[in-house]
């Protein structure tokens, strides 16, 4: 096995890769499943849900690696990610972190792999992929975080929690699990239907529409507005949500109404969060906490270097 090296340059350099792009799909949209005809905004209904679990993850590439093999250098990355939840207990009027998990992973290309020498506090798992494209390495790493998020969301939802997870959902379980998408890259609405966004006020939503038909995971989706702003465009303060189509339409409607009524309560303020209001207060706090738990990047990088160097000396 070849010698392992930690590269000296910034780990994120040269990877402007949009990792969630692949998950967006604009296929056939059925915008008649709830309202067949002209759309008008639907006011949300707070059904008094007691607890809401917000699930999210953060990741960081800690270092680039090179495995010095006889037939050429093998690229690799190693990074840390954390996933967890904030459970907002509306009855107790408090929020707490739950199920916080930090994992560290090294990914090598070219089907090669090497264990990362363990430090006393920092331990990396090691995996490999057949490709050599650095983007694919990051994709694999990002996928690991998404899987961990999905596992946690499913676990909480199975336990009876109402879950709001950051990002699209991709499974077929009929649980109360909402995917929460802040950005609007793929156009789901026809030009005619899009006009409704000018009329949807805070606390209201569009009718449901079905997306991903024919794909692996068809979902009910809707747009809702978190906050009215005087100077915003018609899509400002708007988020898209989705739930699995394995739920009944009535169940999906109930969840959509609940989301329209409740989510605006946790929208962030523009002067506090540049991604306001879509970046929800509990999720922003969760990301901050997870980032903190990933450890100081300089400290992690140094520990990694010294562990690799130490192993090289021993070898």
């Amino acid at each position, binding site marked *: 096995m070849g010698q392992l090296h930690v590269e000296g340059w910034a780990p994120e350099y040269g990877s402007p890769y949009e990792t969630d792009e692949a998950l967006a799909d604009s296929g056939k949209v059925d915008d008649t499943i709830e309202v067949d005809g002209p759309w008008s905004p639907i006011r949300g209904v707070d059904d008094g849900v007691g607890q809401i679990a917000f699930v999210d993850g953060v990741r960081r590439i800690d270092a680039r690696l090179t495995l010095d093999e006889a037939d050429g250098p093998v690229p690799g990355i190693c990074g840390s990610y954390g996933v967890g939840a904030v459970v907002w207990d509306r009855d107790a009027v408090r929020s707490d972190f739950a199920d916080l998990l930090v994992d560290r992973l090294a990914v090598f290309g070219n089907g090669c792999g090497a264990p990362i020498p363990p430090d006393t506090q920092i331990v990396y798992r090691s995996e490999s992929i057949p490709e050599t494209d650095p983007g694919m390495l990051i994709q694999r790493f990002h996928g690991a975080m998404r899987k961990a998020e999905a596992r946690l969301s499913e676990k909480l939802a199975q336990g009876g929690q109402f879950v709001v997870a950051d990002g699209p959902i991709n499974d077929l379980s009929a649980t109360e699990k909402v995917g929460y998408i802040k950005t609007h890259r793929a156009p789901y609405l026809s030009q005619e239907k899009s006009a409704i966004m000018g009329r949807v006020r805070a606390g209201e939503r569009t009718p449901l529409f079905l997306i991903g038909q024919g794909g692996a995971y068809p979902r009910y989706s809707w747009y809702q507005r978190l906050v009215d702003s005087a100077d915003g465009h018609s899509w400002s303060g708007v988020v898209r949500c989705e739930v699995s189509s394995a739920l009944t339409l009535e169940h999906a409607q109930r969840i959509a109404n609940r989301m329209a009524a409740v989510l605006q309560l946790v929208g962030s303020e523009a002067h506090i969060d540049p991604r306001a209001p879509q970046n929800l207060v509990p999720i922003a706090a969760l990301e901050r906490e997870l980032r903190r*738990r990933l450890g100081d990047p300089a400290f992690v990088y140094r520990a990694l270097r010294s562990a690799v160097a130490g192993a090289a000396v021993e070898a």
Partner: protein
Amino acid sequence: MTDNRANEPAAAEADDNGVGRVLGTEHTSTREFRVVLDEAEYLQLDDLVVVRTQVPKQGEVHTYGIVTEVAAIYEGANFESDTHRIAVEGTLPGAKVRSAEIAITRVDPELWVSPDPGGKVERAKGAERDKALYVDEMGRPLPIGLGRDGEPVYADLDFFDGRKGGHMSISGISGVATKTSFALFFLRLLSARPDVLGEGAANLRILVFNVKGEDLLWLDKKNRYFDRAATDSWQQLGVAPGPFPSVSFWAPPRTQSGDAVIPDTGGRQEGVAAFTWTPREFIEDGLLRFLFTDATDSRNQIPFIEERVRAQLQRFAVDVEGRPGAVVLRDPIEGHAPGSSVVPNPGERIIGDLKSLVTAVEEFVDPEDGEPDQKWTGRVQAGTVSAFVRRLHSASHRLGHLVRAGESRQIDRRAAQVTVVAIQTLHDLGQRFVVGALLAETFAEKEQTGQRLPLSVIVLDELNKYAPREGNSPLKEMLIDIAQRGRSLGVLLVGAQQSASRVASEVMENAAIRVAGRLDAAEAERSEYGWMLPSTRARARLLKPGTMVVSQPALPVPLVLEFPFPPWATRKEEVDTSDVDPFSGL
């Protein structure tokens, strides 16, 4: 994930004194550190804590400290409005974190290292508490009050009675600082604990001046408002509560009472003796100098002529046959033997009070017809002589009633352990005269023997009046002398003042034990209170009556203590007149 949990068994923390952990997000030092408190624990100001630190190659070091500030914050809140999100809406995860700031008082063994972050902080109790307060190193620890934890706080008597240091200085606002109350409380403990005071307890004499009201004229009477809680506190201090057992009270005579000598007091006559000096005693003790105690007197040549007149009076004074205490002035050339009595010649002025003495002196230094006698004036300028005479007349007017012939009524400081001299009715000039005369007498006695024992304690309020920072006077000089040399002669000053900054610095600097009650905010910022921690200074303006800050050489930080309600009365209405003894069975 990175986890730096301190490697200690968690189970052991169940039933111990642990209150939290040393904060790890800022540096600890040998001066201070912070504690993050456990959920179910608390620390308040002045609590004492200990941390055990494993030092490489040296072993375990105990760091002791005292809480100087406590704080709480929402962790996870980045903006002020996050407070609402955490407390009211509950939408933001956040946790209350409480912490305390500790000033380190001691490291044992003396290895000056800082405590480790994450180290377990425990409340110092029992022997650990004594170590935090250096009680184990005190030669003779005397309890001088109760800490906030209800346990006694000690002062090392070695630093009061002159062995290693002497004197006490008490500062604070009038009325709420309870300066005199604390002084008396301290003296009661001192006199009631011969087991701590040791050899100095025998024949201990305490001289107290009552300068305001008649607060101190009831020290021998029980206080009817003394209750069970106060009893418990006194017993915590190892003293059975009770009034002072041995007190004598002295007051100047009334001015308009003719030949009868009646003490000039309002609420109490019984057991109070009037004091006066005879002209003979006045001359013999050289008390003339204490008529010139105004700080401005020293700027001109008055001290010079005063000294000359004082010496001449001692040479000229001759006792009068059949008139005890009275004298006539005759030139020694006329050949009278020392101690002899003479029959006055017809027309010769008999000096029976201050007025006649002043008139007699005036005849020498400023006669109506003829030239001044230069043996008496020492050739000072005429203006100075006039000023001298003017002051003499004014003194005769203000305190003339303190000097009269007849039987000796000098204050007898041996009559009781505590001598209370009531000077509140006297003019400032009279107060300074009495204080000066008694201090001189006390100091002269001790100077003659040169012995530290028996101890003589002097309690003097409004010290700034007797030893002001500016100017000079024989009284100020004497107080400085006592402050500087009294320690080795067993003359101990317990001085009190509203502002330490207005008292002669020589007097302040020599006080080993410094005490402050509530202070004026501006006063507390002065350098005279540099012995306080910044946090204590900030708090000094909030101290309740009965709470004092005490600094002593044996301890690097000042302590805040409370002293219990006195078992003696401080007003006539407080005197317990019932026959039932509330202290029986205690």
